[in-house]
């Protein structure tokens, strides 16, 4: 591709691989737009001249009926034919109908023909819209649609400009009706392009007619109406469509009424209409081709949608202000003309492409239906509604006082803005649902009537285990006043499991229980239940003589519960006896006893158990050492935490668990271990995840600090922050956005590096793949940061979408990013992470990161191997060394020597290989 072409594609926001299709669609729309323009000029001029503006509302009403019928037949045909074939059929039909009007004109007398012709224009306009947008909707995905719809739809604007200009120049000589010949020729000229698009684009993949397995067999308006009612996004879009169309029709009506007053003879009238149309089309084209795509990308959906109604409201307010001053009729006329032009331009240049973009996340068949509903049903509604409204106005104000029209437009403008907000809200929901529809909502649960209370009370004693557990869970979750009573009642349940669960709840929530009930439980049940009951009993201040016999129980858990209960809650003698028992266990020759002792020590309050545990620590038996370390963690004693850290080398998994048990107290120790240069990277990562699991403000402080001090650990730190359910307040938000910017710049650098390597793909495939893994990791880290910054749940959907690997899901995910994440971050993220060929994204990337830096493969390799800010995977560094060796790239002796001494075996071995072979 030439540089010049590249410049234009860049200016139009088109990627090289999309150009052929965009070009064909543009030309096709150009031809069809010109055809429609010729038909409109002829029919409208003839109507205004022969019939008059006050009869125009009748045309709207007739057109509404015709439009419904057309929409009905179109939807039938759409199910029968694939979209490419249907587009050809429709185009030929339009050409034939124009030809018939021209031929019949010579024999037709009377106004009915002109009413019919102008109403038919609406049909042709609708068909052209349905066919063109239907085709575009299946050819492009949601991301492409944002960039390209404005460009491809701009094709009809130069066409209409040329059509109207030709009409302006020729109408005097050839007569208005002969413009229809030009219309027929233009329509037929578009057919070869349609055929070409049909042949080359993969339309079958998206074909509506081929969705045989989906249930939408009947082609009735009722089906469309069902869809209208069933899909909130479609419904809201449909309502806005009516409002937009009504505004457009009313403004035009008022403006044409003014024109009719100003231009009395038919030629000057036709010339003015053609000139007005030509000027407005050429401005619209400029806006559409250069601005719209970028505007939608930069502003987002909601702001783009607001442009048209806000401008309309402002201009109407200006008209109303000017009207209060006498002698300003001409200014009002021009102001209204400007409003008509502005709304016409903005509607076609911004509102329509944005509406189509909003529909893109819907499944293909639903998207086409939505399109039919909007164009085939709602446009006619708007036409009918406006026609009737204007008729009423004309009846009460025959002298065309437009005051009421201004107020109606203001009201419609406000409704339009409200509607836009509602559409935007639903758009986000639709994107999320498209990615995953498995939403789970907890239902509220409440018990208030006496029958239900009675039933629940019976169930906790006699129901199945599952029933009782569910009832207790629900009562707990809903903070029911019955909870405590029913937990105690469930101790009478026959199941040991239920009793154990109930005792645990009693302990956890300090539920008061009568001693007799606990003694009953103690006498009859399993060791598990007994142990829990003993502890609870001690807590209630029972006669300790009742507990002492259990100090010699054969069951270790019962014995431990008795010792723990008596030491924690007992008095002098009982406490001493229990302490002696514990000492026996600590010094026992049996590992099982020592394990039991460690468990007991962990649960003692105010017993100075820390030093006892410390004494137990030089322990040879693995199982005992594990129990002691866990006990050490539970005590949260700083002396013991130091010991746990020392055990990280030999007993890593247990030591990590013990640190977790120590909670926030362990954080200073974790921090210093991570900072220690001698700590292996893998252990650093595990400690970071551990800090995330500990959670809380201190853990978050530690993690946030690491993002600055240890940038190379950004991946585990971002993940840990996400996993710990961290959410930002104002300060860290700003800071984390800064970190995200740095990660994005690093991602961009990786894409640049990939681009350099891709110039010789076969040679560097291994390294390209490694860089892709780096890019995925960065994306994941960014998503973690976005999740803590913006919306955890929705960003998780983005991650899920990437995990599916499906392009359509990823594109929808990028939409979520655009809507949730700060604009500049979202733009950079999406350009870097959009699926598809890197070469196609380079132009956009150059705009964001103009200095490519990497020009040679050596630079890439050295950058990876020498970078000390960002840590690359060992794999990536090994691939760089390997590539340097295999492809004879000189990365410098120092770097190779450095890695020949690396701790990681993969790196060391590869570096030694390069050293030997170079």
């Amino acid at each position, binding site marked *: 591709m030439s540089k010049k072409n590249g410049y234009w594609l860049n200016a139009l926001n088109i990627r090289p691989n999309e150009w052929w299709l965009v070009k064909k669609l543009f030309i096709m729309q150009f031809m069809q737009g010109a055809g429609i323009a010729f038909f409109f000029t002829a029919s409208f001029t003839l109507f205004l001249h022969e019939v008059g503006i006050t009869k125009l509302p009748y045309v709207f009403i007739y057109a509404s009926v015709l439009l419904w019928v057309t929409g009905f037949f179109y939807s039938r045909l759409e199910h029968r034919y694939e979209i490419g074939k249907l587009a050809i059929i429709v185009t030929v039909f339009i050409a034939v109908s124009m030809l018939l009007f021209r031929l019949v004109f010579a024999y037709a007398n009377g106004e009915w023909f002109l009413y019919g012709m102008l109403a038919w224009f609406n049909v042709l306009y609708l068909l052209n819209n349905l066919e063109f947008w239907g085709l575009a909707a299946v050819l492009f995905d949601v991301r492409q649609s944002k960039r390209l719809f404005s460009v491809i739809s701009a094709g009809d604007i130069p066409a209409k400009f040329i059509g109207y200009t030709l009409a302006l120049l020729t109408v005097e000589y050839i007569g208005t009706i002969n413009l229809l010949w030009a219309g027929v020729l233009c329509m037929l000229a578009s057919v070869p392009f349609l055929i070409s698009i049909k042949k080359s684009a993969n339309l079958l993949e998206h074909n509506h007619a081929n969705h045989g397995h989906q249930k939408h067999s009947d082609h009735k308006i009722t089906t469309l109406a069902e869809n209208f009612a069933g899909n909130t996004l479609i419904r809201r879009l449909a309502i806005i469509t009516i409002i937009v169309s009504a505004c457009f029709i009313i403004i035009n009506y008022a403006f044409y009424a003014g024109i009719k007053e100003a231009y009395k003879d038919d030629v000057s009238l036709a010339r003015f209409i053609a000139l007005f149309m030509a000027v407005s089309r050429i401005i619209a084209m400029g806006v559409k081709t250069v601005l719209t795509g970028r505007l939608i990308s930069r502003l987002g959906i909601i702001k783009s949608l607001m442009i048209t109604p806000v401008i309309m409201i402002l201009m109407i307010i200006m008209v109303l202000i000017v009207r209060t001053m006498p002698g300003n009729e001409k200014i009002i006329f021009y102001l209204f003309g400007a409003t008509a032009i502005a709304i016409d331009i903005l509607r076609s240049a911004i509102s329509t492409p944005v509406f189509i973009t909003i529909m893109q996340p819907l499944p293909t068949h639903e998207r086409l239906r939505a399109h039919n509903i909007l164009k085939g049903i709602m446009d006619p509604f708007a036409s009918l509604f406006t026609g009737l409204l204007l008729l009423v106005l004309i009846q009460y104000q025959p002298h065309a006082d437009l005051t009421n029209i201004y107020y109606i437009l203001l009201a419609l403008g406000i409704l339009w803005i409200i509607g836009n907000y509602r559409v935007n809200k639903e758009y986000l929901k639709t994107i999320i649902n498209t990615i995953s529809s498995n939403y789970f909502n907890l239902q509220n649960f409440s018990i208030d009537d006496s029958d239900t209370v009675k039933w629940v009370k019976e169930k906790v004693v006699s129901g199945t285990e599952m029933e009782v557990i569910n009832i207790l869970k629900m009562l707990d979750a809903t903070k029911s006043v019955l909870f405590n009573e029913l937990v105690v009642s469930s101790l009478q349940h026959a199941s040991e499991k239920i009793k154990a669960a109930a005792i645990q709840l009693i302990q956890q929530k300090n539920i008061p229980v009568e001693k007799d009930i606990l003694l009953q439980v103690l006498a009859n049940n399993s060791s598990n239940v007994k142990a829990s009951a003993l502890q609870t009993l001690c807590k209630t201040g029972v006669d300790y003589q009742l507990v002492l016999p259990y100090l010699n129980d054969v069951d270790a858990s019962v014995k431990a519960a008795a010792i723990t209960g008596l030491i924690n809650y007992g008095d002098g003698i009982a406490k001493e006896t229990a302490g002696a028992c514990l000492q026996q266990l600590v010094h026992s020759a049996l590992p099982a006893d020592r394990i039991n002792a460690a468990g007991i020590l962990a649960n003692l309050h105010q017993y100075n158990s820390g030093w006892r545990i410390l004494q137990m620590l030089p322990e040879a038996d693995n199982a005992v050492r594990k129990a002691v370390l866990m006990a050490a963690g539970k005590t949260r004693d700083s002396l013991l935490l130091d010991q746990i850290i020392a055990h990280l080398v030999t007993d890593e*998994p247990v030591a990590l668990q013990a640190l977790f048990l120590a909670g926030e107290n362990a954080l200073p120790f974790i921090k210093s271990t991570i900072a220690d240069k001698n700590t292996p990277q*893998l252990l650093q990562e595990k400690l970071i995840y551990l800090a995330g699991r500990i959670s809380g403000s201190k853990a978050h402080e530690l993690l946030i600090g690491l993002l600055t001090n240890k940038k190379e650990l950004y991946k585990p730190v971002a993940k840990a922050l996400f996993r710990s359910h961290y959410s930002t307040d104002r300060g860290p938000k700003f800071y984390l956005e800064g970190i995200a910017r740095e990660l994005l710049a690093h991602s961009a650098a990786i894409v640049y590096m990939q681009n350099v390597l891709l110039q010789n793909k076969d040679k560097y495939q*291994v390294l390209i*793949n*490694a860089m892709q*893994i780096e890019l995925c990791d960065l994306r994941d880290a960014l998503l973690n940061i976005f999740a803590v910054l913006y919306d955890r749940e929705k960003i998780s959907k983005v991650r899920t979408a990437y995990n599916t690997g499906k392009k359509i899901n990823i594109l929808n995910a990028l939409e979520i990013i655009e809507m949730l994440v700060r604009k500049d971050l979202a733009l950079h993220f999406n350009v870097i992470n959009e699926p598809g060929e890197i070469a196609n994204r380079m132009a956009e990337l150059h705009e964001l990161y103009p200095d490519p830096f990497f020009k040679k493969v050596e630079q890439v390799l050295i950058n990876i191997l020498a970078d000390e800010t960002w840590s690359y*995977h*060992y*794999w990536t560094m*090994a*691939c760089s060394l*390997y590539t340097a060796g*295999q492809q004879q790239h000189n990365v410098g002796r120092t770097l190779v020597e450095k890695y020949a001494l690396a701790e990681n*075996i*993969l790196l060391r*071995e*590869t570096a030694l*290989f390069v050293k030997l*072979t170079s």
Partner: protein
Amino acid sequence: MSTSAGSQGLLLIEKVLLLKSLSIFSETPETILAELAPLMQQEEVEKGTQIFQEGETGDCMYIIFSGEIEIHKGKTSLAILQEKEVFGELSLLDAETRSASATAKTDCLLFKIDQEPFYELIEARPEVAMGFIKILCKRLRALNDKTALRGS
């Protein structure tokens, strides 16, 4: 793949690339395979050597780097496996008996991964287990689809 393999064997990086070229690991990131590669032990097997016998308890998987391996039940040949194919892979995760025998049809260069060091690796690097779980899920889904297709 052009390799540095000779009598010295493959480099670790080349072992990773070999693993990546196998269909079962084609979607596993190289960063995870880099953890697995050090466990690969090279074995040269002469033609006719029995690698394992039906009914034996399996505790390792094999990757064929070169040569052909016949999988058979008694004298009935079930499959001939070639370069870049694996056998016995489920034995990495469980210790069930081998359902068929494996014998070298030609001189072969194999890579063997034992179960025990694999378990140790999983303990230290859970992401390796996650990679394997993904592979198993994929196979399970494919099997479910196949069964559903047969059922319909």
